[in-house]
C-alpha cells in the first residue's frame, strides 16, 4: 500500500472497530511530573475515578481520590529518594481500591530521568478488576514484559 493510500485510510476512513476498542477497553492512564504537575490523563481514567468517587468538579477541575493521592505521594517520595541516591531504575508500586462496589487496581510507576531529573515522571495505570468475565480473562492471560521493572511494594487497601 502506498503512503498516499495509507494517509487517506488513516485520516479519512479510520477503522470504527479500532476506534471503539481503543476508547473502551484501554487502561486508565494518568501522567504526572516529578513536581506533581498533571501532564496527561485519558477519559478512561476519569471514568474509573468517577466510579470510586468524584472525578471532575463543575468547573472542570480534576479531583483525585485519597487512595490515589496517597499512592502518588508515595511514588514521589521514593522517586526523590532514588534520584538523590543516583538509582535510575524504574519501579512500580501498586494497590487495590474497593469503593462503591468497584475494585480498582492502581499501578504506579516511578520513572526517573538520569539526564534531566526534572523530567522524571509518575505514571499511574487504572484497571477495573473482577467486574466482568472479560476482565477476568484479561487478568489471567496477561503477561509481564518488563523484567527491568522493580516492584517495590504491593499492598492491598480496602476502603469499604
Amino acid at each position, binding site marked *: 500500500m502506498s503512503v498516499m493510500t495509507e494517509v487517506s485510510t488513516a485520516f479519512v476512513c479510520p477503522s470504527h472497530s479500532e476506534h471503539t476498542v*481503543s476508547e473502551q477497553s484501554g487502561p486508565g492512564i494518568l501522567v504526572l511530573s516529578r513536581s506533581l504537575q498533571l501532564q496527561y*490523563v485519558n477519559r478512561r481514567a476519569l471514568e474509573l475515578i468517577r466510579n470510586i468517587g468524584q472525578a471532575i468538579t463543575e468547573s472542570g477541575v*480534576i479531583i483525585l481520590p485519597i487512595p490515589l493521592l496517597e499512592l502518588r505521594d508515595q511514588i514521589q517520595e521514593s522517586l526523590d529518594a532514588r534520584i538523590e541516591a543516583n538509582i535510575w531504575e524504574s519501579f512500580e508500586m501498586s494497590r487495590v481500591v474497593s469503593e462503591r462496589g468497584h475494585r480498582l487496581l492502581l499501578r504506579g510507576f516511578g520513572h526517573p530521568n538520569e539526564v534531566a531529573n526534572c523530567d522524571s515522571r509518575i505514571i499511574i495505570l487504572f484497571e477495573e478488576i473482577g467486574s466482568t468475565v472479560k476482565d477476568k480473562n484479561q487478568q489471567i492471560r496477561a503477561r509481564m*514484559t518488563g523484567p527491568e521493572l522493580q516492584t517495590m511494594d504491593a499492598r492491598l487497601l480496602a476502603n469499604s
Partner: protein
Amino acid sequence: MTSSKIPPKIEGPVNPDRRGDTRVPKIQQCFYQLAQVAGYEIVKFSNGHALSLNTSPGGFLLLMPQPPTRGQVFEMHASLSTEEERAVKLVEACWTRELTFGDAGKVYLVGVTSLFQLASLI
C-alpha cells in the same frame, strides 16, 4: 490486566530533539489520544488516527492530522504482531513539522520519544 514495559534508556544524541539510534521504516496505522490540561483542569480531549512512519528503540516518527505541542505527553495505540494484542504507548512530542499533503490538507510530522509501553489484550 495489562503488562507493562519501560523502554530502554538510550544515550542522548548530539541534537536532543533527534533520535540517534537506527530507524526501521515501518508504516502502521495507530490511534492517538490527546488531552490539553492546564493545572488540574482539563481543557480539551481529542483523538484520531495517525501513521507511524519509522521506529527505533527510543521512539518513532508519526504523521498526524493535528500537532501536539512540544513536550506534550500523549497516548498511542497500535496493533502488535498478534491480532489479539495491541500496544498502548505513552510518548512525548519532541518536534513537529507542518506539511501540506494532498486532499488531507495540512498534516504534521511529529517526532516522539517513548516513555512507557504496555501490552493489552483486546
